């Protein structure tokens, strides 16, 4: 029994760490720029497809392919910021949201055209399975968790220790004041979006290696990402970390002990309940 619980938790940690990476990409954009960047899920998918194709066509390993996909992801982020969101920066919020929806359709559509409708599974050479006291620890899952931690750590450091990070935090706290202090909001916006999309691309690569990339997966990831955001508190990086892991593990436990069919419903129920009773999130400030 205890082994079963531990196994389910370990399974959940791997997918949970991917949720965290997605949520991180969302929270930097939402917390700093106030945009509910719904297309993030589709951008993640692009990252996954790209990783697969770089791996196949260029014959490079998984991690180099992922890194390359992240670079492309950053460029995509720049384009999205400049062409789609900047024109409506000062318009009512609803416009930015509708643009997010339109972007979702566009990126999904481009993915469909470029990569086809079939699912894509990124094969990796990491197929080892270790037995730790009855719990099966798959090499791939451990690598996913480690990669996610590295990415999260890097971004956290970027925001808290660098000068760029300082400007980002300034814009998040008070945009007009930041402008007055000489912060280039356009530059901050561009950087935030590139970082966010690079993270998204990485998450897509990880999902592709763990499971698969296919049309429709992006939407689900985006919604779960927002669920984590709401759970952990908007704009809070520790919140995204805790929220992602909690969501991943509770999904796995619920699927194992209650019902696997309604697994996805857990995420949504959690989100709705948290929104109703503690809208600032478990770790957010009131």
């Amino acid at each position: 029994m205890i082994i079963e619980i531990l196994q389910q938790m370990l399974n959940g940690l791997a997918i949970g760490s991917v949720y965290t990476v997605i949520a991180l990409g969302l929270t930097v954009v939402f917390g700093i720029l106030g945009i509910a960047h719904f297309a993030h899920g589709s951008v993640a998918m692009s990252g996954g497809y790209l990783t697969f194709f770089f791996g196949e066509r260029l014959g490079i390993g998984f991690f180099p392919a992922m890194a390359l996909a992240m670079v492309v992801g950053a460029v995509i982020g720049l384009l999205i910021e400049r062409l789609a969101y900047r024109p409506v920066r000062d318009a009512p919020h609803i416009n930015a949201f509708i643009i997010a929806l339109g972007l979702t359709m566009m990126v999904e559509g481009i993915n469909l055209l470029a990569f086809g409708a079939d699912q894509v599974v990124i094969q990796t050479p990491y197929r080892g399975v270790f037995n730790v006291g009855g719990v099966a620890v798959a090499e791939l899952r451990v690598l996913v968790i480690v990669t996610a931690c590295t990415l999260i750590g890097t971004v956290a450091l970027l925001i808290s220790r660098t000068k760029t990070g300082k400007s980002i935090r300034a814009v998040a706290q008070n945009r007009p004041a930041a402008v007055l202090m000489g912060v280039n909001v356009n530059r901050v916006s561009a950087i935030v979006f590139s970082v966010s999309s690079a993270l998204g691309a990485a998450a897509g690569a990880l999902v592709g290696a763990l499971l698969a990339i296919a049309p429709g997966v992006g939407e689900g990831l985006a919604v779960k990402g927002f669920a984590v955001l709401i759970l952990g508190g908007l704009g809070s990086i520790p919140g995204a970390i805790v929220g992602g892991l909690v969501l991943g593990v509770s999904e796995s436990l619920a699927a194992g002990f209650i019902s696997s069919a309604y697994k996805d419903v857990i995420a949504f129920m959690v989100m709705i309940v948290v929104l109703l009773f503690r809208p600032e999130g478990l770790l957010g400030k009131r």
Partner: protein
Amino acid sequence: MNPRTARAMGMTALVLAALTLPLWVTLPYFQHLIILALIWVVLAQGQNLIQGFTGYVSIAQAGFMGIGAYGSTLLSVKLGWPIWLTMVAAPLVTAALAVLAGYPSLRVKGHYFAIVTLAYNMVIFIVLMTWSSLTGGEAGISNVPRPPSVAIGGFVWDLAGRVGYYYLTLIAAALATLLCALILHSRVGRVLLAIRQNEALIEAAGVQAWRYKLFAFVISASLAGLAGALYAHFIGFLNPDAFGVDHSLNAILAVILGGSGTLSGPVVGAFAVVFLPEYLRVAENYRLVIYGFILVAATIFMPRGLVPLVAQGIRALAARVKRERR
């Protein structure tokens, strides 16, 4: 000719065309599409109420349509209720669910609300797919019956045929539009528009905005429920895929494209959303990209939608003609 006369003549022509449609559109395939478009008019008018008038983007409209569709179907197929009754019950059931769903979620603002409605749609979809003992799951429910014929005086209205059903959906679309028109021109409508403009201001003036938002949300969902019932008994076959999130996105597109906050906008948008895939069939793969692009471009360049833009264009043209006449 002054604009009012022109408009009245245009409206009359449109009404005549609609009433006599089966005479001059005889290809069954196009009749099929027009009926679907009218069903979407009902859906889009609902979407417009919450999105266009009140400024709250709901991504649950297709989910509510599903509730209405399955509601009406299960009541008639499993409990044997007469279809005219289930078609009335469907919007009511959907409304009840919307009250439950809306009450907590309308307390939060714009972005959150949209995301929560998205979650609602996904929950509805998953439940429809998974609770197969009730809904048939992925395989769905087949042989959903058409409404029985109605005898009015000596005239028999055959609702089993396409022509008969066309008039049913025409009436429904007209009633939906009328309902939204009544709301728009009432005090409630003015409050909703004010909420869209500046919710904080109207709350400061002492208005309990959430009541009005809930009202709009519930009416919008009931229209979706009605559309669902009409859809189920028309297509004859029900399956959760018709009520997924991508269809909710289509409803949003219909409203944006046609014109947020106008009454004719949703009509134009609904027809566009139903007919475009048929004409873009050659470029089926490009459809998503095109839709998305339209949504983005429309929001950036013509945030008020197609109908106001066209109306503006016509007015400008009329003004130019008038000037030249003098």
